[in-house]
């Protein structure tokens, strides 16, 4: 066992200090994912189905005992105008926010962003009523 592999195995905080550059197979869609092309050293979700695994409690500590699949549920815009994905663990419901990578599937990301508009969440009648009420006519004025 080389020195680096030994460190990876026994040093508890190894991945907090070093990026994990191992290729992996996505547990949801089964595609193999390589670290190249992400634009970042910290690839934490599959670029095709955007799913992740619940292995960390805080980034890189590998302390979680849950190991559930984390589904992408939403996107949000961070302060530096960059998108981030919000993942939710299927088993324990933990939420976590992750930066998107350069090669994430753009259609998948767009589908996530459009989800609130797709359902009945914004009622058209409500919006129409609101805009009618906002458009105040000054009838009392001469």
């Amino acid at each position, binding site marked *: 066992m080389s020195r680096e592999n030994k460190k990876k195995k026994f040093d508890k905080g190894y991945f907090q200090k070093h990026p994990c550059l191992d290729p992996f197979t996505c547990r949801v869609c089964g595609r193999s994912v390589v670290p190249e092309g992400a634009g970042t050293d910290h690839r934490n979700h599959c670029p095709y189905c955007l799913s992740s695994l619940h292995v960390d409690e805080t980034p890189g500590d590998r302390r979680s005992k849950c190991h559930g699949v984390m589904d992408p*549920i939403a996107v949000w815009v961070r302060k530096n105008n960059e998108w981030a994905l919000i993942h939710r663990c299927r088993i324990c419901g933990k939420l976590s926010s992750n930066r998107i990578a350069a*090669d994430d599937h753009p259609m998948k990301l*767009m589908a996530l962003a459009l*989800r609130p*508009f797709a359902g009945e969440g914004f009622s058209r009648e409500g919006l129409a009523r609101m805009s009618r009420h906002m458009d105040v006519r000054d009838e009392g004025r001469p």
Partner: protein
Amino acid sequence: MDLETGTRRCFSCGFEMAEEDAHCPNCLCSLHEETQEEWECGGILQPISLWVKDDGSWEILQKCSLCGELAATPRAPRDNPLKLLQLAARPLADPPFPLERIGEMTRLMGGSGSTEGYYDEP
């Protein structure tokens, strides 16, 4: 909580909240009372995004301004519609890729999916 009048004010915007509100209906913020490790935090949970559950109901995702923990709170019927629209539309207003080239990008990356479903089912 004001003991004399029995009202509660939002710590973020000062809106008068009802007793049963989990978050402020005006600014969608709430107080981060307890973290997952059961520490008292006391930061303000600010809304960052919306999540549509499988049954179609919504939850508002919040992030603590102090400790950064994420929380989810169900949408209430009297929530400010303008704030909800803002949360939903913010990613669309600031996309990480040019929207007019999204189809080209997807093809280059060898992915599937298309935007053509808007007019009719392809």
